[in-house]
C-alpha cells in the first residue's frame, strides 16, 4: 500500500512535469530553458501543487459528507 502511494505520487509528479512542459515550452530553437520558460515552469508547478492540495481538501470534505451513500 505504501508502494501504491509512491506510485500515485510519481504519476502525479510526471503528470505535472508534462503539463507544465506543454504550457510553458513552445520555442524549440534552443535546447536550453529560457529564463522566461523557467519562471513559467516554476509558477506552473507551484500552482499545480496548490491546486491539487485544494482539490484534495474539498475532496476529503465531500467524501466525508457522502459516507454512507451507496456507491455508484
Amino acid at each position, binding site marked *: *500500500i505504501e508502494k*501504491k502511494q509512491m506510485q*500515485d505520487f510519481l*504519476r*502525479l509528479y510526471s*503528470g505535472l512535469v508534462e*503539463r*507544465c512542459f506543454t*504550457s*510553458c515550452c513552445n520555442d524549440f530553437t534552443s535546447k536550453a530553458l529560457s529564463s522566461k520558460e523557467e519562471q*513559467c515552469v*516554476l*509558477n*506552473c508547478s*507551484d*500552482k*499545480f501543487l*496548490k*491546486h*491539487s492540495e*485544494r*482539490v*484534495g481538501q*474539498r*475532496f476529503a470534505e*465531500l467524501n466525508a459528507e*457522502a459516507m454512507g*451513500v*451507496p*456507491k*455508484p
Partner: protein
Amino acid sequence: MSLFGRGAPTPSGAVNQERIEMAINEIDMVSDVFNRIVSSCHSKCISPRYAEGDLNKGESVCIDRCVAKFFEVNKKVGEKMQSAGANA
C-alpha cells in the same frame, strides 16, 4: 472467488492477501477519480499563463465549486446508471 485462493492450506495468509488486494483496488478507484477531478478542474479554473505561483481568489473559488459540481455530476450519473441497471 479470489484470484489467489488455493483452497485451504494457508488460511490466514490467503485472507490477508485478499484483503490487501481489495484495499488496493479501492485506493486505485478513489485515486482515479481524484486525478480526474484534479485534471478537469485544472482545465476549468487555472489560467495557463502562469504569471504567478499562487492561486488567485477567482481560481480558488472556482476550484471549490468545480470539485462540488464534479461530485454532483458523479452522483447524478450514478443514480442514472442504477435505475438503468434496474430496468435492464
